[in-house]
């Protein structure tokens, strides 16, 4: 669906994106993660046809974005981080404008406007001037604009930036609904919890280079082959740190009160044996289990731990 082939973009002496080679299949929700300045926005802007690559090629649904921009853009819905809307238009007029700009036939446009307004929950504001909307509402209107023409691909650049927690939750629910409708989404963010449970694939960018890309499940399992993090809790006084220190395949132990975390590099059987050993040593275990890896954990493992 989205193909980046040897994509490169330079700004003067700075190589913002270096020889990117990624393919995102249909229906995938691809999270582009990395610190500020990693090249995420540049990639999305090139994918939209807003920036010309210095070298390389991008195709969306098989259409070369820079050779046939208008055709490619009919498949794309784009939303950036901070943006304005035309305050002097009404909500429906704004969507009507973009529907026409995407050359939707009149017969489809009117019902689609109502459908999209309903989808983003702006029914009561349909005939209101945009200048009266809150920031969160404007962001929802932005999403409505991006999907008015039923694009196959959504390119979202830090869509949750500057939103309050309620608006972020709304946005997340909206994106989940779009995902369930089968849209292919490329979303960039440096607020990683926003992408949790939403992305099916991730790509980690560092200094313009894609350091790791793949399905979240695959990367998690690959990383899990190396080690896992185990959380445990217990009651009563017990020499837990001492027992763990003497155990095989255990490292990075962190104990706070009656809770602890440690890194374990052994097999599942060895982990079960360790639990048994703790109990046999008189530790009254309340809970013991592997910590599920979040995208943030994965990112921290994969990246160079730059300041987010």
């Amino acid at each position, binding site marked *: 669906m989205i193909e980046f082939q040897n994509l490169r973009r330079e700004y*003067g002496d700075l190589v913002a994106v270096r020889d990117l080679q990624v393919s995102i299949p249909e229906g995938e929700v691809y999270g582009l993660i990395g610190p500020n300045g990693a090249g995420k926005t540049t990639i999305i802007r090139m994918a939209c046809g*807003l*920036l*010309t690559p210095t070298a390389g090629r991008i195709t969306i649904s098989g259409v070369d974005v820079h050779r046939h921009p208008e055709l490619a853009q009919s498949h*794309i819905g784009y939303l950036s981080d901070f*943006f304005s*809307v035309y305050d002097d238009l009404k909500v429906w007029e704004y969507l009507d404008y973009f529907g026409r*700009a*995407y050359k939707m036939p009149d017969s489809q446009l009117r019902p689609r406007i109502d459908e999209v307004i309903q989808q983003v929950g702006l029914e009561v504001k349909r005939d209101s001037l945009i200048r009266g909307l809150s920031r969160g509402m404007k962001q929802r209107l932005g999403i409505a604009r991006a999907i008015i023409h039923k694009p196959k691909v959504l390119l979202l650049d830090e869509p949750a930036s500057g939103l309050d927690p309620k608006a972020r939750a709304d946005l997340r629910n909206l994106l989940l609904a779009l995902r369930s409708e089968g849209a292919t989404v490329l979303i960039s963010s440096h607020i990683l919890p926003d992408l949790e449970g939403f992305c099916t694939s991730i790509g980690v960018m560092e200094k313009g280079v894609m350091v790791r890309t793949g399905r979240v499940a695959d990367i998690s399992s690959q990383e899990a082959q190396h080690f896992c993090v185990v959380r445990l809790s217990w009651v009563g006084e017990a020499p837990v740190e001492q027992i763990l220190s003497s155990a095989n395949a255990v490292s990075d132990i962190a104990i706070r009160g009656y809770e602890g975390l440690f890194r374990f590099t052994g097999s599942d059987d060895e982990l079960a044996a360790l639990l048994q050993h703790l109990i046999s040593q008189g530790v009254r275990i309340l809970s013991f289990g592997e910590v599920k890896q979040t995208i943030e954990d994965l990112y921290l*493992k994969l990246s160079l731990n730059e300041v987010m």
Partner: protein
Amino acid sequence: MQAPWRNPELIRHARADLRPTRMVTAAAVSVLLCALLFLMFYHSSDPATSAPGEREIPTALYISLVSGQALVLCLWCLSSCGQAISSERSLKTFDFLRTTRLTSGELLLGIVFGVPLMAYFVVACTLPFTLILGLYAGISLLAIAATYLMLLLLAVVLSLAALAISMMTDRPRAGELLLLLALFGLPVWASMIGASSNSPFPGLTAILVIVGLLPLYHVAPMPYEPITQLTHVPFFGFQVPSLLLTVVLYVSVGAWLLLILLRNLKKDREDIRLLSRWQVVGFTVYLNVLVFALLDLRTIHSNSSESAFTSDIALGYLGLNFLILYAVGLASLTAPARLRSGWVRASSSAKFYWSEDGLPWPWMAASALTAFLLFVLEAVVARPFISFSEWSVGGLAAGLFVLLVFAVRDVLFLQWCALKGFRSPAVKGMLFLLLYYITALTITGFFFHSGIAWFTPLGVFGDAELGTPVSVFIGVVLQLVVSVYLSIAIRQRLVPSPLPPLPRMP
């Protein structure tokens, strides 16, 4: 292409700007102003000498209203279109427009007529007044129609020019100021050249729309005698109505602006290149042909000796083409990233030099050659007035070559500045060059006269003392050495530097 009335951008502006309350207010204010003007004129007229209903008052009212409409429309177009793109960019809404399926042409149409829509509406509200007053004053319908068509043409060209500036600048205020200076200063200056007695370019007066329109009102374009001839001006040797030449000038300039906008409107500001390489050469052809078309061979021929005349023309031609070569060079400067990628792709082949991502000098040379060939062609065409042998074709070729060498040196320096990573490299580079020329002229002017031709192109234009063939030759050799040095410096900056180490894989 959508029908104009279905253009989304136009509809957007119509919806936002022409809401019923705003329309009623604008119409009421316009009508009120017309009524006030009407009352003022009738009140101030002396009833003893001019009874109401005489033609002077309606004529004066008509002129005042049309002037007011023209002023409002032109200033509104300049101001609103001068900010149209830069303000959308700063609001980050322009990217959304660029990602729609609207073509540059559709977007342009919508902006040019949509952004100043309120001004068009105000003019439309007052139009019935001017129409009635004009007819009552005995002005022909043709004159009124021609006036409004010319006003529309002027407004569109001004909007295109303002939009081009807005597309290139992030600071609308600076852009507007620059535009106002260029749009009001240049035509007035050009028309003054055209209007001066024995001017070789009387057609330049047509750059002022009013010069072409006044004959339709049976009024001489200028109050003094020689200018009355300007109701018809020479164009390619034929006497054509001044108004027709005005249309030709505005339409042709508008067409170039349109081309620039259509090429670049949907591009990112960093990717904007006003014209392609071939279009730049085309622009050279346009300017040279236009200047030749405006030249009144018969007038000059009758006023001076043939040799002095051809010498003046050749010098003027050299001066014009020196400016054109600079413009071509500046327009052909290549962004460092594109130059590098072009170099990496095809540095070993001649393709690099002629590609869109190559260095500017081959295209400057092509422009100079084109200008020379056009000059020869024009000399052949002008044979009925001046024999071909009177033109110093060889001298002109040599002069053009010398100017090309100097222009290439300066443009290579600007390209090097861009590669060096200066901020606003063209502006900074131009300032360095200005400093160089001032220093060179001061030192050589005081101590070393013949050195002027060594360090500046003035040897081509100066007298024999300043520009002896030997000193001009030395100047050319010096500039070629500097140009080669600059080319080597540029080449060194194009060679890909070793990449910084990749981030380690986990």
